[in-house]
């Protein structure tokens, strides 16, 4: 009786483990499909697309994961065939540095321009010479006297 119970327990545990492994494979398959671009409908991921080629790609992902390949290996498989374009998020490479940094560079340039313009507005262009200062004082005083009630 004991032996039979143990065997049932082991079988049940094995089934549960298998189901969990399948679950995690399906999860990885979904995550990978969401990371790859459908090469026919280029603004959709493989996960979203209904195109036959996207279906083939999902099947290929599934088959390769079942063979025990890592996520990186599956991505490399598609990249070798379709180019880095197949990755929905562009990789960080010298050729994509401008793509990734462009928006930040634009914001940075905008702030630099803003700062320069504001500084120009608030600072006096050049200090007055003593003669100019005297003339300015004269005007200020004379206008003060005129405005006095």
């Amino acid at each position, binding site marked *: 009786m004991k032996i039979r119970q143990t065997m049932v327990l082991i079988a049940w545990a094995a089934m549960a483990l298998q189901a969990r492994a399948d679950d995690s494979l399906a999860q990885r398959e979904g995550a990978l499909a969401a990371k790859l671009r459908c090469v026919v409908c280029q603004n959709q991921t493989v996960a979203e697309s209904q195109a036959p*080629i996207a279906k083939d*790609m999902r099947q*290929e992902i599934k088959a390769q994961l079942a063979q025990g390949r890592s996520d990186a290996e599956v991505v490399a498989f598609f990249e*070798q*065939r379709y*180019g880095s*374009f197949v990755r929905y998020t562009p990789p960080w490479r010298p050729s994509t540095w401008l793509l990734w940094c462009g928006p930040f560079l634009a914001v940075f340039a905008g702030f630099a321009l803003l700062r320069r313009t504001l500084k120009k507005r608030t600072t006096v262009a050049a200090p007055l010479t003593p003669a100019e200062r005297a003339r300015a004082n004269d005007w200020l005083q004379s206008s003060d006297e005129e405005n006095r009630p």
Partner: protein
Amino acid sequence: MRFALPLAIFLALAVMLGLGLQRDPRALQTALLDQPAPAIARPLLEDPQQQFDLASLRGKVWLLNVWASWCAPCRQELPLLVEFSRRDQVPVYGLNYKDQPEKAKALLRVAGNPYVASAVDADGRTGMDFGIQGVPETFVIDGQGRVRYRHLGPVTAEVWQQKLLPVVKAVQ
């Protein structure tokens, strides 16, 4: 002078975006460029007992044309391929992509058969190795078995004269 810089920036952006609009986002060069062509371990359409033999094509420059009977542009390019490959002595091999052999053979009887031989890629797995986006596509493969060019879409007289033939001549 005050507006010179913003105007210059605007014009540069307009030209850049305008040029970007002219480009076809699908017209990407193949990732296999100058790489060895993937293996085509597939049965022949004409004789399923035999396998397509890539090694026997060493030393020859040839075209691999991906086609299917369900693909309308393929029907139009078949007679042209027959004519051009004969005229310019360029052997064309076929990859019959996700098709039914009976329908494929029927189309070749009606539209003309430009192929020395066609490999049957029933599940599209070989097509995936070639990074195929859609049918038809045409690859130029050199004497060392490397992919030298890929054309997306049907072969027309202009495509043959201005794109495929110059590459074939250059690598011959």
